[in-house]
């Protein structure tokens, strides 16, 4: 037994040695990877980073440019004792920062070896010049030029997006395209057009001698490659309108989206509260604070938030009713402060004249009227069951761009949600639901969710009398061609003629002239022919959301706006002035009349943050 064990151990020794030798054989003889890597090690590739493309607004103003900053690099092994105070003074930093960094390098010197370390990031050119003058006193320290993003206009952090160093997850996702230490656009426009903006890296090749000093340029620069700068991008954004929208939305939670109806070009896209452009250039430093903010500034509400649309959705139901032939513009329905639907339930409404026909019902936003409309759609004899008529209704709704991603070129867009009849079958059973069960859908409440971008797109659809072009933020420009889908019209399933009624109702809502008076007088601007529709959407987390869509001018729409303000109450109080101010600013260039100036002041000073529930 003992002898046997002795031999077993000797065999084990042999196996262990074979494992070591096997692996050595693989890396020394079979695998070429380590030989090329060794060549990389003695040839130094000094990367030249291309300048990133500039982002322009639709009028040619720069919204994202580049500026020069310097990183201070230190090779700890080359550092000689130095005057910390003088260095800190030149670089305009606290000496303790330098001391603690140097202490760190000393502690981990064996791990760091000859690698250069970044002592300070983004030192301004002024400070760098002061340092450069006395740089000879500090061997081992040098400056490395870098371009960083510069924001001449505050056009909104969520819209523009930020650029930051790629992390492991990103490298994995884009295998082979990036290397550790590269920068890439992570959100917003920067991410949407990353491939155009980034450019192509170049490099100088140097040789290193046996003391790790860079000696000469390799083969007189034969292998060197110039960097190719990134392409410039022209966006559809109107920088001043965007900035104005941000001012209006200050201290409110919600979104404003403005679209040019004829082209589908997004003019402004405000998500509030958002990331400030002053934080964008060095997002890493602010990232923790941004994530901690209870109002989630990183969350781009314009394309990601899914809200019930509220009364603005009545337009869609009305149009479907007209198209299906279950509603005629002259039909009048009674409404005595609501719509009774059995067992003493009543879907409430505000006081107005009764009975009303379609145009007045739109203008006054009568809840009762649209309950009748939705009932007619669902109880249409054409269809054998409520399931069939409901799915038909859903098909119509989807043709307005709801319930699925619109396919915008803006990243991280979500699709909202329009339920299917199956959803209700599962919830209530096949026989367990009827019109009364889902009556909230009549007025845009209940189980539907839409994004502010989709609401704005619906408004643009009405303005276009029946079609939309997928909203997008990039325009064609020299060198950058956008996809053809951003030129194609998408028609809804409702005929153009029916849209005239919706437009007329929206005009009356703002400018009056009907039998019952409109809900949106506050949006009226002399000479602009604004058409609008208020909405008030219930919010399970506190006060109602205020919603307003409008476009102008009525007969040649140049701009369609959707404003969605969380917990702000009735649509006419906050969303309507915000949206109409956007239109006025865009079409007139300024807010001129004293009365409108008062409205502007009230909106800008308004602070609704205390109403919003935090997580």
């Amino acid at each position, binding site marked *: 037994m*003992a002898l046997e*064990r*002795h031999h077993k*151990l*000797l065999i*084990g*020794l*042999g196996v*262990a*040695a074979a*494992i*070591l*030798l096997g*692996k*050595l*054989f693989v*890396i*020394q*003889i079979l*695998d070429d*990877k*380590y*030989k090329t*890597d*060794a060549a990389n*090690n*003695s040839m130094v590739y000094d990367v030249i980073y291309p300048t990133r493309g500039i982002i322009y607004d639709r009028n040619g103003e720069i919204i994202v440019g580049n500026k020069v900053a310097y990183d201070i690099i230190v090779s700890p092994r080359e550092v000689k004792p130095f005057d910390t105070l003088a260095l800190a003074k030149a670089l305009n930093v606290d000496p303790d920062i330098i001391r603690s960094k140097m202490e760190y390098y000393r*502690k981990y010197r*064996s*791990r760091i*070896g*000859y*690698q250069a370390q970044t002592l300070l990031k983004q030192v301004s050119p002024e400070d760098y010049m002061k340092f450069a003058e006395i740089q000879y006193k500090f061997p081992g320290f040098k400056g490395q030029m870098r371009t960083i993003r510069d924001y001449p206009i505050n056009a909104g952090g969520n819209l523009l997006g930020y650029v930051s160093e790629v992390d*492991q997850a990103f490298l994995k996702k884009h295998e082979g395209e990036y290397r*550790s230490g590269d920068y890439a656009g992570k959100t917003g426009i920067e991410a949407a057009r990353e491939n155009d903006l980034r450019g192509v890296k170049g490099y100088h090749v140097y040789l*290193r001698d*046996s*003391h*790790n000093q860079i000696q000469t340029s390799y083969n007189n620069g034969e292998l060197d490659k110039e960097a190719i700068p990134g392409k410039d991008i022209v966006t559809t954004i109107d920088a001043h309108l965007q900035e104005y929208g941000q001012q209006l939305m200050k201290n409110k939670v919600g979104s404003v989206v403005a679209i040019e109806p004829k082209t589908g070009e997004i003019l402004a896209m405000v998500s509030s509260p958002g990331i400030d452009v002053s934080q964008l250039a060095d997002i890493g430093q602010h990232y923790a604070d941004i994530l901690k903010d209870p109002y989630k500034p990183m*969350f781009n509400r314009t394309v*990601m*938030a*899914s809200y019930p649309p509220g009364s603005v959705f009545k337009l869609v139901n009305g149009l479907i009713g007209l198209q299906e032939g279950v509603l005629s513009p002259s039909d009048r329905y009674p409404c005595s402060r609501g719509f009774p639907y059995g067992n003493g339930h009543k879907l409430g409404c505000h006081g107005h004249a009764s009975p009303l026909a379609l145009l007045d019902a739109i203008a006054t936003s009568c809840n009762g009227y649209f309950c009748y409309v939705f009932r007619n759609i669902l109880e249409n004899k054409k269809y054998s069951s409520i399931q069939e008529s409901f799915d038909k209704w859903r098909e119509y709704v989807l043709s307005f761009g709801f319930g699925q991603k619109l396919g915008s070129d803006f990243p991280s867009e*979500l*699709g909202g*949600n329009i339920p299917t009849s199956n*959803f209700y079958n*599962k*919830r209530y059973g096949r026989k367990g639901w009827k019109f009364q069960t889902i009556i909230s859908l009549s007025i845009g409440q209940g189980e539907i*969710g839409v994004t502010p971008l989709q609401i704005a797109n619906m408004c643009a659809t009405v303005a276009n009398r029946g079609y939309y072009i997928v909203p997008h933020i990039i325009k064609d420009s020299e060198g950058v061609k956008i996809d053809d889908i951003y030129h194609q019209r998408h028609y809804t399933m409702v005929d153009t003629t029916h849209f005239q009624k919706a437009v007329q109702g929206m005009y009356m809502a703002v400018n009056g002239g009907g039998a019952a008076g409109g809900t949106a007088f506050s949006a009226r601007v002399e000479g602009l022919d604004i058409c609008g529709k208020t909405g008030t959407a219930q919010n399970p987390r506190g006060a109602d959301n205020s919603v307003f869509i409008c476009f102008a001018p009525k007969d040649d729409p140049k701009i369609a706006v959707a404003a969605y303000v969380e917990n702000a109450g009735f649509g006419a109080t906050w969303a309507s002035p915000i949206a109409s101010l956007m239109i006025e600013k865009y079409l007139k260039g300024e807010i001129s009349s004293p009365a409108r100036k008062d409205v502007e002041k009230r909106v800008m000073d308004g602070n609704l943050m205390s109403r919003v529930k935090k997580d």
Partner: protein
Amino acid sequence: MLDTGNKYKRSLKQSIDWVLVGIYLVLIVLGIVNIYAAIHSADGVSFFSFDGRSGKQLVWMGTSFFLAFMILFVISPRLWEPAAIPMYLAVLVLLVVVIFVSKDVKGSHSWFEFGPVKFQPAEISKITTSLMLAMVMSRPNFKLSRIKDFLTVCAVVGIPMLAILGESETGSALVYVGFIFALYREGLSGWFLVIIGMAIVLLIMTLTTGPYASILTLIALVSLIYSLEKNRFGKWLVTDAIFLLVMALFPTIWNSILNALIPGASLAMVTEDPSVKEAILCTTNLDFLLLFKPLYLLLAVIGIGVPIYAVKAYREAHPFTWYSLACVLAGVVLVFSTNILFEKVLQDHQRKRIEVLLGLKEDPAGVGYNVNQSMIAIGSGGLFGKGYLQGTQTAYGFVPEQSTDFIFCTVGEEWGFAGCLLIIMLYVALIWRILHDAEDCRESFTRIYGYCVACCIFMHLFINVGMTIGLMPVIGIPLPLLSYGGSSLWAFTILIFIFLALYRQEKKYF
């Protein structure tokens, strides 16, 4: 002391194992030659200059020879056995004291410093623990199978190991695991080796592929061994193997079912953005399905299977079934405590090194830097290397700690695969020679001590070389006799020459 006049006494030539001494000398000389290659360009000093590490190592070599001479010819070999206990205790005290009085060197507290002289008690502890182990186990009536004796052995090895762990010298502590081979030689059940091997497999699998795969592997291994032990391999192939295969495929199947029922289900499970999750889940009322995880099914299988086999074991009165069950349960506990072990017990830098080794994280510029550069250096050596002092990787200082822990890089780069083969064969010869001599001995004290010495050298060799070629995590322990450093060289000299002296003492008379 020197014996004279015994007619049975053999000559010096016969009594000392000169082959062993020869291998020892060759390794030391190769060490100095390579240390010079590793530092020649950075320090810019001549081979023999005492400012450079090769010169200093020459001094250490000289002093080591002096120590070797003293041990072979001056100190009586009979002293080692009685001295084992006091030396062991004294070193133990030093091991603990050093934690509190030493300076922090790269996070560990293991060095005594007296002016320019530094020394690490952990190095000496290898010697005293080996002697102590040999002393304890060579007592008459000692039996490893007796609980009391077994626990004594555990304490002898475990206490210094714990103290060294307390100094944050994980690498040196790991060397003590090697004593298990010596214990195996002296009658420790082979199952211990199997269980330790299995535990290592489980730990690695849990970290790389997750608890599901590792528990399934555990069940597979235990059931396979169980069926082999009971001669039921055929039955195992028919029933257990098929069951295991189905279970192995289950997570994939479950995932596709989920994705078919809920579009985007896999995204919902991994996303950290609640709004995305909500957007996916609002379209379905099957979201409760996401709460079920394949692991639960596996645990349910164990929960049902273990009691059934427990009843069987009880009826058949078959201890092996009990042991197998205990293994399964202990394995499950190990799998679920792996993450706690990994996150809480290990230090930050150790965790990162293991993550890099297992390929969980890539970090060529950070923690992975050492290993990556070291593999480049060795790999670029090719078959015959770049030639002495021609290495670029080691010379340019890409490889850190090049004259101490990463000395093998210099060998690999400048001497190529041929050089590596030579060095490793020299170590194998050294270990084989010690084992051979140990088996030759009549006194169990000498034999056991010899095995302990061989185990120490083996562990250092495997861990150190394994680390430089990416087989082991970066654990800073020197390559015996080759790496720069006085205290390591002294320790291995003493370790080996005590054995030579003990061996000589026997050879002189028999």
